[in-house]
């Protein structure tokens, strides 16, 4: 059973602050982490391997060279191997170009049964790359998977989260799933895993290794393009309602009562 998990290294937004005067982003010493939703994908891959008693979990990521750190973190959780896809020519890729690149990398690895992705990345928030990859590979997809009821090398029965509850879907494999937080609780890295991750050789593939077409990658390959970045108008300063609890509460209710009465 070959499982490929796609992960992305993202900035950790805890430390992202807004400069109160200029309203611009201050990003001092912000750490990079594995996209939180991808952690669930990695964990699910490991659980499937444990469930079936056999298999291989391969982690891939497209990003700048420092994304290697994220791959090593995934290996320290127990993944078997990893591949880094990086190349200056890939810079500026939107989700279309990214899903193309990742799909080609997956084809190069070949012979896979399942692709796992996190629901979305917390920096881009688009949730488009997963379905994009399955489109390129022309394999079935199920998004927002919250539970894998049954799984073998050829077939799976899963629960897809919906706004009302969930759908139960049966799909042949190979297929691609994007997973949500409800699916599991990611494990912490183990010491042996960390030591293994430190020593592991991670191959690096670039545009040439993957035989990518120039007009489908990077800035030129991206249909969408950002033309403007601006800070949203700041919320007007609010007021603190002072006084004894009952006083403050009365003031608040006075201000809100028209909003609340429908």
């Amino acid at each position: 059973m070959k499982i490929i998990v796609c992960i992305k290294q993202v900035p950790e937004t805890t430390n992202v602050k807004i400069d109160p005067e200029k309203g611009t982003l201050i990003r001092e010493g912000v750490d990079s982490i594995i996209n939180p939703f991808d952690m669930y994908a990695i964990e699910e891959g490991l659980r499937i391997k444990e469930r079936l008693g056999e298999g291989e979990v391969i982690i891939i990521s497209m990003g700048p060279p420092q994304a290697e750190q994220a791959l090593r973190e995934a290996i320290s959780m127990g993944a078997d191997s990893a591949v880094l896809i990086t190349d200056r020519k890939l810079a500026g890729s939107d989700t279309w170009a990214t899903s193309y690149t990742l799909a080609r990398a997956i084809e190069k690895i070949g012979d896979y049964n399942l692709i796992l992705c996190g629901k979305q990345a917390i920096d881009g928030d688009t949730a488009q790359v997963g379905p994009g990859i399955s489109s390129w590979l022309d394999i079935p997809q199920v998004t927002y998977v919250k539970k894998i009821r049954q799984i073998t090398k050829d077939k799976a029965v899963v629960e897809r989260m919906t706004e009302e509850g969930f759908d139960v879907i049966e799909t042949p494999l190979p297929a691609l799933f994007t997973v949500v937080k409800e699916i599991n609780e990611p494990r912490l890295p183990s010491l042996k895993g960390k030591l293994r991750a430190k020593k592991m050789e991670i191959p690096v593939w670039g545009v040439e290794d993957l035989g990518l077409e120039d007009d489908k990658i990077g800035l030129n390959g991206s249909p969408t393009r950002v033309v403007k970045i601006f800070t949203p108008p700041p919320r007007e300063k609010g007021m603190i309602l002072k006084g004894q609890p009952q006083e403050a509460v009365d003031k608040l209710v006075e201000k809100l009562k028209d909003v609340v009465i429908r």
Partner: protein
Amino acid sequence: MIRVIKEKCTGCGLCIKVCPFSAISKTSDNKVEIDVTKCNLCSACISACKLSAIVIEREEEKKDFSQYKNVWVFAEQKRGVIQPVVYELLGKGRELADRLRSQLWAILLGYRIRDQAQELIYRGADKVIVVEDLLLENFLDEPYTQVLVDLIQKYKPEILLAGATTIGRALVSRVAVKVHAGLTADCTGLEIDSEERLLLQTRPAFGGNIMATIITPNHRPQMATVRHKVMKEAKVDSKRKGEVEVLNYDGKLGSRTKLIDMIDEVGKTVNLAEADIIVSGGRGLGKAENFRIIEELAEVLGAAVGASRAAVDAGWISYAHQVGQTGRTVCPKLYIACGISGQIQHLVGMQSSDIIVAINKDPEAPIFKVADYGIVGDLFEIVPLLTKRFKEVLKR
């Protein structure tokens, strides 16, 4: 590629401050340089530079898109009911179509669904394409994708809008790759640059700290998804007339995935997405039993109950209630945050609420910076008083 025009650069460093990827640094000759391995070409520096000293150079070949016309709205239906977000898209779509002097079409997939088409016309569509097939009764990724791709290739719409719902997002992402279109998710703003016939798609990034405007200059259709309750619903005009075209696929559709069951979770009355008022509890509550205080206030106000990640992680309430970066994003009319400190990951989930109220005993809590009204105090005292007072005032 991105490039600094050294002659224009004065080394003021404004670009360095705004770069979210720390990709810009000062050089020894007091200019700046950009590390292309870190640069994501997000253009924040270009916007910040007052001297236009940074440029992005692309190979530009203007393509002819005159064959593409009309604005399409994917009319998502579940169990035969058209989803409310569709009416909001029709409202916006009408505006866009008018600016482009073109038509607004709705695309409705389902089984025995054609009688729903009329409502779409009342809401502003000039034409509705209905595709009926047993396999389309409920959403399945592959047949829906196939139909939409075929329609796009046949009719060549200029713009396609869909709701940013579970279905919408899965569907249009797959379609976008197949038709080589640009797709922008979760737009909060859609405008037309009528000179270039470009759809200007505005959306938040970096958790809402920054807004980005995106275009798809060289690919058609220009696709965008929009969240529920962001745009205004189109009003019903029962005098409107329009065309309905019904297509069927004569069993030519296939699906490798099978829908075995659709299950509603009983008692899932949360629906944070729909709520006009949300009362949320956070770490300040201390334990699961104390959510009762939040629930009582919510009941009086007819509100949904939300929670911060801290409360969910502590096991005090289920994940369905979590508001924030890794939970739900909400924009109700009124959001009352009790015992929530207001870490950025929570804020990104609710900061676009119309009115934010914060109750926290820590005057330095970040939540007070986004709150329209705040009370510094013990929530165990304040919230019950609030419940009581609202009860009196609302006579409930």
